[in-house]
């Protein structure tokens, strides 16, 4: 297990380096520079000085080398835009994003998984039909539109919740953005769970268990659920990563102070160190979640070995 973890951690290094290189090269070739957004000064010398100050006067390979050397010491660089250390900026934004993502996933699991189970137990029935309508709708609805509808209903019409903002970080501010972000993974989990359960229900070992006289409750609990969980976990792992990316829309809409909105602002203003730092954190988060899911596979199904 320890060897597996060390191997996986080592495998992340080339992945991270590749992402860093890709982002660096992309932002070196796309047009536009932060200098044009920082000052509309009349003196071209000022622009040159600004470029020199930001290190933008150096060739790409030199800047990349400097950046990698910085990264090796845990320094993500200094934001062109705010002139703050990027690590400080990300630290301020990380907790709100984690709150949002985990709340969304909690909603997705708590609603999506039981919905898929219930639907699969009576395939073709009313509950199944309704559950699949919910699932398909949930996957189809744009997050921006859904967020607005949630604001309209729960804030404006019912007056139960605030429509925007982070407030004091309390639950009432989290509910609507988490719902807006969580509906899509909820729908996907419902469909995945239903498909997995339906497949397992017809498997040989389930038929054997039933023929041995095992009650339906025990069959579902000991055979179906445990086996379906592996697929559900895989879906959850992938969705965690996807949520990091999708949080951008929701964070902007709800004025939520997360990494997603930091990334968008930084891209629009060509704040390269902040873009690189934000993307790096997203990638690291995705890799960490995947590693965690791999470990959990073994816990759920002891037949899975860490080869």
């Amino acid at each position, binding site marked *: 297990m320890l060897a597996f973890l060390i191997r996986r951690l080592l495998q992340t290094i080339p992945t991270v380096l590749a992402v860093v290189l890709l982002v660096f090269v992309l932002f070196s070739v796309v047009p536009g520079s932060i200098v044009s957004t920082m000052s*509309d000064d009349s003196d071209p010398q000022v622009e040159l000085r600004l470029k020199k100050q930001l290190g933008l006067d150096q060739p790409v390979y030199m800047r990349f080398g400097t950046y990698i050397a910085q990264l090796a010491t845990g320094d993500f660089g200094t934001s062109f835009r705010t002139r703050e250390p990027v690590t400080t900026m990300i630290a301020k934004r990380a907790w709100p994003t984690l709150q949002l993502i985990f709340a969304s996933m909690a909603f997705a699991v708590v609603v999506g998984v039981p919905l898929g189970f219930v639907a699969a137990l009576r395939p073709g029935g009313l509950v199944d039909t309704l559950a699949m309508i919910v699932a398909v709708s949930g996957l189809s609805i744009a997050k921006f539109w859904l967020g607005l509808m949630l604001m309209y209903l729960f804030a*404006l019409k019912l007056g139960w919740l605030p429509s925007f903002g982070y407030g004091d970080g309390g639950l009432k501010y989290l509910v609507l953005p988490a719902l807006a972000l969580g509906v899509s993974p909820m729908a996907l989990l419902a469909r995945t769970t239903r498909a997995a359960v339906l497949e397992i229900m017809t498997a040989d070992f389930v038929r054997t268990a039933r023929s041995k006289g095992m009650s339906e409750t025990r069959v579902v609990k000991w055979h179906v659920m445990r086996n379906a969980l592996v697929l559900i976990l895989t879906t959850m792992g992938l969705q965690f990563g996807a949520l990091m990316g999708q949080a951008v829309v929701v964070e902007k809409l709800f*004025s939520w102070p997360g990494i997603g909105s930091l990334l968008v602002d930084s891209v629009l203003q060509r704040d390269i160190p902040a873009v690189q730092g934000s993307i790096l954190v997203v990638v690291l988060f995705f890799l960490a979640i995947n590693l965690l899911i791999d470990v959990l596979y073994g816990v759920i199904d002891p037949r899975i070995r860490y080869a």
Partner: protein
Amino acid sequence: MMFKTIAIVAGLGLALTATAEAQTPRKGGTIRMTAPYGSSFTSLDIHTTQRAQDEIYAKALHRSLYIWNSAEGKPVLELAKEDVVSGGGLVHTFKLRDDAYFHSGRKMTADDVIWSYNRIMDGSKAYPGARYVRVIEGAAAVEKGQAKEISGLKKIDDFTIEMKLTEKVDPGFYFFTALTSIYPADEAAKESFIQKPIGLGPFKFVEHVPGSRIVLERWDRFYKPGKPYADKIVVSVMGEAAARDVAFRNKEIDTSVLGPAQYVAYQSDADLKGTIVEVAEVFTRYMGMNPNFKPFSDKRVRQAINYAIDTDLIINKLVKGKAYRATSWLPLTAPGYDKAMKPYPYDPAKAKQLLSEAGYASGFEFEWTTSQNESWGLPIVSAVIPMLDKVGIKAKVKQVETAVLAEVVRTGDYQAFIYSQASGPDPQAALKCFHSATPQSACNYTTFKNAELDKIIDEAGQADDPAKRIQLLQKANALLYEEAPVWFFNYNKAVMAVQPWLKGIQLNATELTHQNVEDLWVDEASPAK
């Protein structure tokens, strides 16, 4: 004169202001403003950022030598009580306030003013406010590293400063924005300042949640007696217009900038109609034409473009009436705006005739660089293309991001572009953007060169009589209209919805969201504590 113009275009807003003035301001409460321009605040160091978004909070936290007076439509003294002009209009002796305290409790002195201006001219930092401070003699030398202190700034005593300028201009136009805010010399030099800024404004810093909000609370030692009225100000970052709309209707925010679609919706809603305030801001939207691209070097072609586009139709149908038709460069609220000027009429036949005279009877093709901006970007370009097509001109769209467009217009890498550019508040500075000595990288984006225009602008700069100066600027504006280096599209109509309990909103033509917040107050109807 200026206020009359604003009054004409402001209608409802003026009524709101008048009502506010008739009542006794209430002490206490929270003002909940919004920062509507997309991204989060750039920095808590307002010297480093020129974005309109950042100045919204900076107007509460900081103060500059001058401040914009919306009622008078001009900058007025703020941190100084008196300005004595001598030396042929080049030397200004400012008697500073002796009752202005920083949020640290220390009194502002002349040293702070000098330190702040020297900081802004630090050439290694390229602060955007340098373009204003550069008007002080010796400031450029500091910027270039040839001197350590601005020679044209002299401390006479703790509360008196002498400022020698390089040009005969009104320093008010140069020293009223937050880019030239006065910082406390000692505290601002510390690294902690960027996390917890200290200013001279009516509200002091409490909290910044990046990407979400800034919270400020009343500074009890603010120098204007009895002000500010409110206990607290919260400025929320809300870039999404639809989200702002819900929050405004839900009474969670007190101000909301409206886009064209919401402008129409609010006007037709009986409950919301009365919340609208509007003003002609000092921004001109236009299509710039590159004179190095052969057809555009001919004045007749440029004029033909102006005749070929049904500008009123676009403003009414596409911009939903949220703009004023441009009649040359200077906007409605600029000193010197000439009411007698008439816009180019929609006349495709005349356009065809001019094109024919210029040798383009069968038309030509050009590439039009645009951003996706809804008010002066791709939707407008898309509407104009068929109109140009009617007279034989084919336009190909080149869409870029706003940040890229800013670079494109300054480097000249275009055949034509569509843009929004500050055309005020100083009419002389606005027209100087078309002076041949003004580089493209500054604001002469169409590299306009005209000896006659240069002469008139130079004469205006030397005129001592304000009336004579205005007369010359009007002449320059009329000449520009005739030369048509651009398609004169519109002047921005800024529209904001304001909750009925928020009083004292000023119709700021330089930027409606920039409010002198010490004059705002909320009545008992406000749901915020």
